């Protein structure tokens, strides 16, 4: 509750700045139109006009809100104009990439924790892999996965495959780093205790290291799911895709429809928020099962 008031104040400030920016950026168009018609405009006419242009440079919040509402509630969800439809397409790829990336991250982390050779060979390259701007790879991943036809083989769309790969590439790293830290977090005392119980290596992993890594795991999942969403959206940009929030933004920008573009952007932000909250909910449930006391 203590945080609610400051956050609301900041949000209010953002909205006010946004309105001011909208007037400032959209004024030029109004002034140009008036000059062409040989009229002069007053300040208040500019303000009134900035609130409702069809192709504003910066749409004011209420216009974005209206476009968002129109995209979500104003269409049947199966329609290609519905943002829900596009969000579902993007979230599909996000989930597939998130699951794949998390699985790869956990497997690599277990390998790295148990093998010094893997630790020294793979870990530096995992770090380097994240300094490569994945978007440089994205168009090529798209073309190659279409050409090889992994999707036909798996029985899904080829586009989904390329987006999944990109999302997995972005999301495996946070999981890998946190899991390595988490699996190594039990201290020597605890490991020794298990040794006095004559526990096998397998039991040590299953009963000590894995439970100990849970907090690290969930913290990384939140980062990973946001990264997977970015990957899925970026994966839609250079592909000529027509479905998905990223494709929606690209198409809207090419056809000069800023309202649609902003609506898709905010839809993407909302999806990111929902995904992170969903992971946080899973974390709470899992924590309660494992006996975490609040």
């Amino acid at each position, binding site marked *: 509750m203590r945080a609610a008031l400051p956050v609301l104040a900041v949000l209010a400030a953002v909205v006010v700045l946004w309105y001011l920016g909208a007037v400032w950026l959209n004024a030029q168009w109004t002034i140009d139109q008036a000059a062409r018609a040989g009229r002069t405009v007053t300040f208040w006419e500019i303000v009134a006009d900035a609130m409702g242009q069809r192709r504003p440079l910066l749409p004011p919040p209420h216009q974005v809100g209206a476009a968002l509402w129109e995209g979500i509630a104003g269409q049947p969800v199966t329609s290609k104009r519905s943002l829900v439809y596009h969000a579902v397409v993007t979230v599909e790829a996000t989930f597939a990439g998130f699951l794949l990336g998390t699985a790869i991250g956990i497997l690599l982390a277990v390998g790295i924790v148990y093998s010094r050779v893997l630790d020294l060979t793979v870990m530096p390259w995992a770090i380097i892999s994240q300094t490569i701007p994945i978007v440089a790879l994205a168009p090529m991943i798209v073309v190659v996965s279409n050409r090889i036809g992994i999707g036909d083989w798996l029985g899904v769309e080829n586009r989904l495959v390329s987006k999944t790969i990109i999302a997995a590439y972005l999301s495996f790293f946070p999981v890998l780093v946190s899991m390595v830290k988490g699996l190594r977090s039990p201290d020597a005392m605890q490991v020794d205790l298990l040794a006095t119980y004559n526990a096998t290596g397998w039991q040590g992993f299953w009963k000590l290291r894995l439970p100990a890594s849970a907090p690290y795991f969930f913290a990384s999942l939140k980062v990973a799911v946001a990264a997977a969403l970015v990957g899925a959206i970026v994966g839609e940009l250079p592909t000529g895709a027509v479905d998905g929030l990223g494709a929606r933004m690209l198409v809207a*920008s090419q056809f000069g429809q800023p309202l649609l573009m902003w609506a898709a952007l905010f839809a993407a932000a909302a999806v990111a928020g929902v995904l992170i909250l969903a992971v946080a909910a899973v974390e709470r449930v899992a924590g309660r099962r494992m006996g975490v006391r609040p």
Partner: protein
Amino acid sequence: MIPAPVDGAWAWGAAAAWVALWGLNVGLVRAGAGATRPGRAAISAAFGVAVLVLWEGAVRGWQIPEVILPAPSVIAATIRGSLPLLWGDFVQTIVKGGLSGYAIGCSAALVTAVLIDRSPFLTRGLLPFGNFVAALPIVGIAPIMVTWFGFGWQSKAAVVCAMVFFPVLVNTVAGLAAAEPMQRDLMRTWSAGYLQTLLRLRLPAAMPFVFNGLKIATTLALIGAIVAEFFGSPTRGMGFRISTAVGSLALPMVWAQIAVAAAAGTAFYGIVALIERQVTFWHPSQRGRG
């Protein structure tokens, strides 16, 4: 499952080289090479070489067509053959778009952090907000920036600026709170003013956090600069070259650009990490390293 190689010599030779290099790595680790810095570098370099050899062998052994996966030797030849082009794209995207946006965005974030740090109310409000925005797919503003600032490098710099701002801001604000109350009290007993406390204690204490943000921002900067070019650019730049080369299935050129991007990304990150080691030499995470 896997079809027999067309050119067995290459395929088996590469596989043998892989096994040999892996064996070398196991040997190096057993011999304790992991304890020294050059030893660690040698181990990871051997892995890199092994991957390249396996790649080359697989492409030649199975005659994989160039439009699917060009061999490393072909990519290297492309890089050698088009250095001026690659340099021009590098300057356009990384230096003009990426670096200038990075510099503006990071300094704006640092200044904002120091300013809002004076008000606990603003800090409490901006931290959750900034954390949330940092997790959003900000790269989506690329088309908006292109409509605002045109096709030139300015729009790329603007996207980069917006992408790096919040991670750096959030980390800096967290860092400014890192100086312990005891240390602040000590500064007060020396009758140090706000500015002196800031410059002598709190900013240095915040540096590990700041560099954490700056390192995250290096990768974001390159992503932003390249993605923004997919939405419109002059006829040069890495993102532009990649999308047109993919269109004409000139995969060796795409891989050459990827190699440049990878090298630039790694170097950028490495430079920031190097500066961090100089600035935060006192921090436990930097001490005791060879």
